[in-house]
């Protein structure tokens, strides 16, 4: 049985081509399989950040954040290998600098808590419509670009 792990990549809007995203998805899947097991698959969600909506050290900066979920309780060494593997891949594929790249390899239950907190920002009354809007966006993006993409703006 194949276990899927979610990878959420937040990037400046328009920063990467469709081909770059595909190479990153393929490469990240290999990083997962080399360090966690051949029966795992990474599932990608691309989160676009419009210009001027991300800051680092209080200055507008086009930072990239990768949240890669890991099996709960993963040992330190494979987790480090995943982190550095993702870093190498991302720098090779995109040419980004160290200071522009933030990567988390979080236990699944912690990543789930974070994503749940994010999903619960809307008032209870609006959560289902927001979820439907998000699903519609993801389906359209999948048909148009082949990737699951949305925006930090709802």
């Amino acid at each position, binding site marked *: 049985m194949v276990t899927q792990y979610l990878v959420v990549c*937040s990037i400046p809007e328009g920063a990467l081509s469709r081909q770059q995203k595909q190479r990153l998805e393929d490469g990240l899947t290999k990083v997962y399989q080399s360090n966690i097991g051949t029966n795992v698959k990474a599932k990608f969600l691309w989160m676009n950040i419009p210009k001027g909506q991300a800051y680092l050290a*209080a200055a507008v900066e086009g930072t990239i954040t990768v949240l890669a979920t890991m099996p709960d309780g993963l040992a330190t060494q494979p987790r480090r290998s995943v982190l550095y593997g993702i870093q190498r891949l991302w720098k090779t594929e995109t040419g980004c600098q160290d200071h522009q790249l933030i990567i988390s390899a979080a236990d699944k239950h912690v990543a789930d*808590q974070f994503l749940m907190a994010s999903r619960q*920002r809307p*008032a209870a009354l*609006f959560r289902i419509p927001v979820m439907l809007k998000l699903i519609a966006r993801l389906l359209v993006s999948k048909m148009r670009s082949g990737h699951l993409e949305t925006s930090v*703006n*709802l």
Partner: protein
Amino acid sequence: MPLYTVSTKKPLTHDVRDQLAAGITQLHCDATGAPAEFVQVVFSFNVPLGKHKQVHLLGSIRSGRSSETKQLIISRFHQLFHTVLRTTEDQAVVQLMDVPASWVIEGGDIMPEPGEEAEWLENRTASRQD
């Protein structure tokens, strides 16, 4: 890390974003002693918050901060939102989540534990100069 996501119902102007990003960065650094270059702030708009809510702040911070430090951060963020957005305490939601430093790469290296930043930054500067 920390990563703070500021969510509002309507888009904020550049000026307000600048003020909030500067305020969040400053307050986090003052309360924790962390360097500003670790602090990331992202704005998310068109979020249908609760009826009386004006702003939601979700922060993931490195594990190891005391509950007093976290309470101080939360209280200062409420003050910041009051100053910049004119919100009352119940119109702003502030949520903090802990993430172990060893789970994160930032600036090219695995992040230091809270309190070990100076050595980490020194090593990084030295390795850049090599």
